[in-house]
């Protein structure tokens, strides 16, 4: 039922899905196409356990953990250019993607920083690529997506080229508003991949990918009651380049050297109505060299080990100097041992050590195991530690908002230096206790545990039950550390928070007939801030009742972390005939989530403001012809659900049509 697909992300090496010991989901190209999906966000929003977030681009929340804590990889190499911790997943076009692998649970033992909640790896393998494919999609709001994908494959060369153009007029779902909730965007994506087999045992691979995004922007800022609207362009570019040399010494031993360079540049050049310029720049450069060796010691034992070095840097106008790149270098080593002492049992243990130049080191262990009880039942257990290194902004930010009352935010490295200077200048009024706690930031870390039971009673049914728990420590939070003489606040970053997420996930598939398949997913999620819970239990947190009078807050009122829904449900019905006709309908439900603290305490409780739970229904129908042409019609958000404030990325009902041509590979 599950098939035995190959997974590369779970073990950093190709493994059969049935031999993987951690929770993994695979989304293949066919599923992506049938959804009519064009950007990565389109796919992820329909996956169990994942929730899209808005604000600073579209991010993804994995099992209750914010977008900051999931690493996004393309062919194993990380994407950079996060704003406030969020990597905008709309940057990623899907036309040449072979599959997407999602690993849930801390994976820092293999991938280092950011792989705290999990890993999303997008794979665009040139092997088995289609010789020529062209597609055109047109939809509501003048949304155009055109892509061409071509490949040349022979005995020693695999080449794949991909070109994508996307544009949308954007939309406004806020009545009587001149500003669009989603602004007009044009994006180009180009991807070139070449793999050359030097010999039977040696190959060289080169890959280049670039995206160029222009957003026509309109920002309204209320300042002292005056609304200032700025127009202008936001221009974001992203380039990734990697080279790898892979050599197989024998059937048992292979090694690969990889070099990777990626640069993200985000620039906003706006002009306010009153003529004042608004400017923002973020440039993130990430370079890495890495070696990995896979050694199959014997039938029962596999060893993977490697190491590398990263040099990265960020330039921003929000740091003390825009010209000077703030840098950090990291050296790391990792090892993973896989053992299958019996046919039923697989045990995998891994460790990784990351030594950083600008902040404390991180040590990430993980152990996982799977045990096959019988042909129908399998148990998987994993426990590991993940971490996220402090952001550059958390270390180097040097930002004073002259407009909004003159408050300042300083990164941890800047804070002490700058505040000392300000004190000498007589500008600081009060130092808070938190000022004396300022220190070199430590990575945030999380201990994650996953217990999975896979049940496959026959070849028509598959059910997977999962329990998960993540305990997060050293959370980096913004705290007031001082006040100016004027009373304006001075903030910096401290490792202060502790939180948890835990829950249940169920995924199931049922094949009714040869042509009809149902699949469903459910996630129950509980989250909480541990310090807040202690305060509530100690009777130190208050809330307001309907009259506006204070009362003590109880644990029954507490709802945990904001932006988390307790219930998420996905249901999909898929029809696929031999004649090439396909149709599907997908239901995605998310229960209410807290968005704003409105009742005068710092915790989220039932008295606060929530976004309403909602259902979105998406559907598509299409036909693939034998001559390589295919057509597809679809509609997303058919119920026309709109919440302009909390779901700015969700337009009302949209329609689209896709026409596609594939040159069928006759060799297959």
């Amino acid at each position, binding site marked *: 039922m599950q098939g035995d697909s190959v997974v590369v992300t779970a073990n950093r090496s190709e493994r059969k899905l049935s031999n993987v010991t951690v929770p993994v989901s695979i989304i293949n190209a066919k599923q992506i196409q049938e959804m009519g999906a064009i950007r990565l966000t389109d796919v992820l929003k329909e996956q169990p356990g994942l929730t899209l977030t808005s604000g600073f681009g579209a991010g993804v929340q994995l099992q209750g953990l914010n977008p900051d804590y999931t690493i996004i990889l393309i062919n194993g190499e990380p994407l950079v250019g996060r704003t406030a911790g969020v990597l905008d997943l709309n940057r990623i076009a899907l036309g040449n993607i072979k599959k997407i692998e999602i690993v849930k649970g801390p994976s820092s033992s293999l991938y280092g920083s950011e792989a705290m909640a999990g890993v999303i790896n997008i794979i665009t393998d040139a092997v088995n690529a289609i010789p020529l494919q062209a597609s055109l999609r047109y939809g509501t709001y003048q949304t155009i997506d055109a892509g061409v994908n071509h490949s040349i494959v022979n005995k020693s060369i695999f080449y794949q080229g991909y070109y994508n153009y996307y544009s949308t007029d954007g939309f406004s779902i806020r009545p009587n508003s001149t500003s669009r909730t989603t602004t007009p965007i044009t994006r180009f994506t180009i991807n070139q991949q070449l793999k050359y087999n030097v010999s039977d045992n040696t190959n060289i691979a080169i890959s280049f990918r670039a995206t160029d995004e222009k957003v026509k922007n309109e920002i309204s800022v209320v300042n002292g009651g005056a609304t200032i609207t700025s127009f202008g362009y936001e221009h974001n570019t992203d380039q990734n380049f990697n080279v790898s040399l892979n050599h197989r010494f024998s059937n048992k031993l292979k090694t690969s050297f990889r070099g990777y360079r990626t640069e993200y540049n985000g620039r906003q050049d706006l002009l306010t109505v009153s003529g004042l310029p608004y400017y923002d720049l973020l440039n993130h450069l990430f370079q890495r060299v890495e070696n990995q060796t896979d050694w199959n010691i014997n039938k029962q034992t596999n060893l993977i080990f490697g190491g590398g070095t990263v040099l990265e840097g960020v330039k921003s106008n929000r740091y003390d100097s825009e010209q000077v790149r703030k840098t950090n270098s990291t050296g790391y080593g990792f090892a993973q041992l896989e053992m299958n002492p019996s046919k039923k049992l697989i045990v995998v243990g891994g460790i990784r050590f990351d030594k950083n130049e600008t902040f404390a080191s991180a040590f990430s262990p993980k152990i996982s195991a799977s045990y096959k009880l019988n042909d129908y039942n399998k148990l998987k257990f994993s426990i590991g530690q993940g971490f996220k290194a402090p952001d550059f902004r958390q270390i180097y930010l040097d930002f004073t908002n002259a407009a909004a009352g003159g408050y300042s935010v300083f990164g941890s490295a800047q804070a002490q230096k700058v505040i000392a200077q300000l004190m000498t200048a007589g500008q600081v009024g009060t130092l808070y206790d938190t000022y004396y706690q300022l220190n070199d930031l430590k990575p945030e870390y999380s201990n994650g545990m996953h217990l999975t039971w896979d049940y496959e009673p026959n070849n028509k049914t598959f059910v997977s039950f999962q329990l998960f728990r993540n305990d997060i420590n050293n959370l980096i939070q913004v705290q007031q550390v001082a006040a100016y003489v004027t*009373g304006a606040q001075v903030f910096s970053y401290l490792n202060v928070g502790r939180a948890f997420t835990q829950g249940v996930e169920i995924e199931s598939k049922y094949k009714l007939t040869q042509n009809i398949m149902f699949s469903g997913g459910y996630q129950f999620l509980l989250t909480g801030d541990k310090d807040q819970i202690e305060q509530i239990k100690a009777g130190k947190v208050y809330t307001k009742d309907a009259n506006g009078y204070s009362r003590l807050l109880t644990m029954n009122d507490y709802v945990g972390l904001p932006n988390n829904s307790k219930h998420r449900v996905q249901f999909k019905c898929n029809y696929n005939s031999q004649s090439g006709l396909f149709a599907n309908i997908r239901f995605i439900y998310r229960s209410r989530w807290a968005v704003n603290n409105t009742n005068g305490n710092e915790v989220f409780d039932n008295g606060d403001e929530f976004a309403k739970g909602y259902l979105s229904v998406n559907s598509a129908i299409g036909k693939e012809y034998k001559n390589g042409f295919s057509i597809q019609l679809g509609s997303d958000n058919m119920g026309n659900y709109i919440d302009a404030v909390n779901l700015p990325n969700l337009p009302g009902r949209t329609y689209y049509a896709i026409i596609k041509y594939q040159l069928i590979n006759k060799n297959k």
Partner: protein
Amino acid sequence: MKKSIQNLAMCLICSVSMWACTKSSTTTVMPVTAVRVNDIPADTVVRLSPQGAPITNGKYTFYSIEKNAIVPNTDSATTKWDIAFMSTRIITNSGTSGIGQGGAFVYVGLFDALTTIPADSVFRTDNAPASFAIPMGSGKGWYNYDGLTNLVTPLAGRVLVIRTASGKYAKIEIISYYKGGVTLPVTASDMDKLTKQRYYTFRVAYQPNGTKKF
């Protein structure tokens, strides 16, 4: 005799009404009742500039707790007022603000639970611009200001313990900063957020006998 019956009746009515109000135990009778004061303007926005900036008169609204009434600005140099409001600022008739014997501090706890002002409490006085009896600024005194939503929300579990201009005691819980006594929803228009702000609704209990018991 007749008078004492009257007194007894008054007492009964008082205690019954108190019991009805507070639903607390009937063994102690609270000698003061809390009153709810609605929509005291505090330098409200009179108009918007052509650029859309709010324009106000920049004047305090003076208020007598004893009389439960607004005091004219011409009486600002007297002891007729106890506290005064201007936007999120609340001053007391003390120190640099007035000639009275006023003062205040912010008590963390529940309004009803504060039955006696603790003996070791320190009443602060206004010392402009460095400090005020009721600290100014978001999260410091009675309110929180959210820069994203532009809303002012009274902090839960804060009681303003006031010493009046004549040296008596009162306690105040701020209920809302917006006209109508309810904080505006996040989704309210920018115009509403500007023009409906700066209206105080609060409940106040005043002890006229000079003791620190409520």
